[in-house]
């Protein structure tokens, strides 16, 4: 290589593994690689225990370090996140990458007003007076379209409704103008009519502020509303990635197909559902075969013998399944 290659990706995760030590070791993430271009949205879709939230938390180093083994590399905006020292890490958190959660109670402090919390987050990263920071906080509340923002600036989190708290948390996350927003099921606890408001807000903010966003959810419908591309996770691995259109219109992995069927969109009454039998594996061992094989109706001998190949079907379109490989060979 003649020149040090400058990567244009905002997020570049390579072969990430996360293992929790404890009474029983849990292999939560087993070789995840993904990239996110600046200003794009990647939806990470998976069920509980698929490793989607763990992957997200690794990007902010939020996992308890004393009992977590992390392997692979995580680069965000040119930084090696796993190697950041404490000072750089706290500069990085919030200013480069910030996060919104399912439960705003995790992000909002009940003893300070919303305005104080946002202003504090601004001052932490920028040299601004508290007064100027408060003015910015007001702008942020306007940005997330909280009604009567000046009044809400002085409100405590418990004085707000669920949807409003979620908006306040988004404002807090945006306080230091991050380049990357991590969203961990931010609409799961919300009512349907509020959920769509928050999804549309996130979509618009992401576009207007030109942020990258990683959006973790278990709900395909939600993922489709906000994402440019999707990654489907199962048992700590990404089993399929592609654009939203490719995954919805032409799912290739049997698990993705099963999830789409289980979403019941357009399912007719009285029809039997194509349910995936069984339950996800316990992840006490690192996988040495296809993790989905025990539940897959297309399972072959090879699936149980070795890890499935990552089959490249196109630019950014990867499926971890031998069926995809066989289809590719047949087509050639």
């Amino acid at each position, binding site marked *: 290589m003649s020149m040090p290659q400058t990567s244009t990706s905002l997020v570049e995760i390579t072969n990430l593994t996360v293992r929790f030590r404890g009474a029983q070791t849990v292999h939560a993430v087993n070789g995840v690689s993904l990239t996110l271009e600046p200003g794009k949205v990647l939806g990470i879709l998976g069920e509980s225990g698929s490793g989607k939230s763990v992957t997200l938390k690794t990007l902010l180093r939020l996992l308890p370090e004393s009992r977590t083994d992390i392997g692979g590399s995580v680069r965000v905006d040119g930084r090696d996140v796993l190697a950041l020292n404490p000072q750089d890490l706290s500069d990085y958190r919030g200013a480069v990458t910030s996060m919104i959660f399912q439960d705003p109670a995790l992000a909002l402090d009940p003893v300070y007003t919303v305005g104080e919390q946002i202003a504090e987050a601004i001052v932490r990263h920028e040299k601004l007076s508290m007064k100027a920071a408060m003015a910015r906080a007001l702008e942020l509340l306007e940005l997330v379209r909280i009604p009567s923002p000046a009044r809400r600036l002085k409100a405590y989190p418990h004085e707000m409704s669920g*949807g409003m708290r979620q908006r306040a948390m988004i404002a807090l996350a945006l306080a230091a103008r991050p380049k990357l927003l991590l969203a961990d099921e931010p609409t799961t606890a919300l009512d349907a*009519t509020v959920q*769509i408001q928050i999804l549309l807000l996130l979509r618009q903010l992401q576009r207007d502020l030109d942020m990258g966003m990683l959006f973790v959810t278990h709900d*395909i*419908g939600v993922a*489709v509303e906000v994402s440019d591309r999707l990654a489907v996770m199962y048992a700590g691995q990404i089993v399929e990635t592609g654009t939203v259109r490719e995954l919805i219109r032409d799912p290739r992995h049997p698990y993705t197909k099963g999830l789409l069927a289980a*979403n019941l*969109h357009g399912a007719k*009454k009285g029809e*039997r559902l194509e349910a995936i039998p069984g339950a996800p594996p316990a992840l006490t061992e690192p996988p040495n075969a296809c993790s989905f094989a025990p539940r897959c109706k297309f399972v072959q001998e090879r699936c149980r013998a070795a890890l499935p190949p990552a089959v490249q079907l196109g630019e950014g379109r990867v499926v971890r399944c031998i069926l995809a490989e066989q289809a590719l060979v047949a087509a050639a």
Partner: protein
Amino acid sequence: MALETHPDRGGPGTPLLQAKTLTKHFPLGGGAVVRAVDGVDFAVMKGETLGVVGESGCGKSTTARVVMQLLPQDKGEMLFDGEIVGGQALTLKEYRRQAQMVFQDSYASLNPRLTIEDSIAFGPTVHGVSKANAILKARDLLQRVGLDPARFAARYPHELSGGQRQRVNIARALALGPRLVILDEAVSALDKSVEAQVLNLLADLREEFGLTYIFISHDLNVVRFISDRVMVMYLGEVVEIGPVEELYGDPRHPYTRALLSAMPSMDPDNRTMEAPLAGDPPNPINPPEGCRFHPRCPHAQTVCAKVKPILATVGDGTRQAACHMQVPGSGHSHAPALEVAA
């Protein structure tokens, strides 16, 4: 003693359950009252599945608890197969054999200190079945909900997955041989792939045991899949009720329409562009006068703020909606014209 089957007394024309102006208020102290369920009327026909949808605070879970008589109603009454629930012909204890409930939290609804078979056998023993018979019955039910009794009967709840536990809860509800099963967000906590298995099971059991379901959920896709008729609730009231395809295809109440269009589109080329409603659902402490939906309704007019709309029959007679726009002569400009008497 054994549990005998319950004969169909009223015939197929009598609703299995009829709720008349069911009302449940919770005093908050200081004079404030949560009007959780406020004069709700509905009927569930024999063998059908009534889906109940609505957002938090709409009163759907309180309705379930009142129907199950876990909470006494403040006003109103229920008829079960024509008999007054808690009356002389149908005591509360008798009613509870015929109506059962499955809760959302599969873990919290099983006693952690009892084995699975003991949990299922508990109900029948309460009604005088011998312990040995109840255990045999429990194992039979485990088989029917898809859990091998030899493997699962003597296990404890914490050793099962969420989907397996919910199967146990379903078996427990069936142990008394009920005719009506209330499913309160029974599949909501499950992962999607497991949810589909349990929905298939529920459909099979309905067939096998001739059950009637009240299916409460916030997931409109699931409700559409499993229900024959759907009831939409808003702030403690029924705003619309009708056959599922008609209601989903042609919602008559603006709230139903908003709820349906708030569903994610699932079509990457045709994503939702505008939220149908702004703000959060209001809480049921001080509901608005008139139509409770009017402050958020795009079609609200003066009459909506003043007069409470009645749940009126609309369309071909199978549907009801509580909206002034559906009632001729209500005073709303979109209301159909009054038919001129000949």
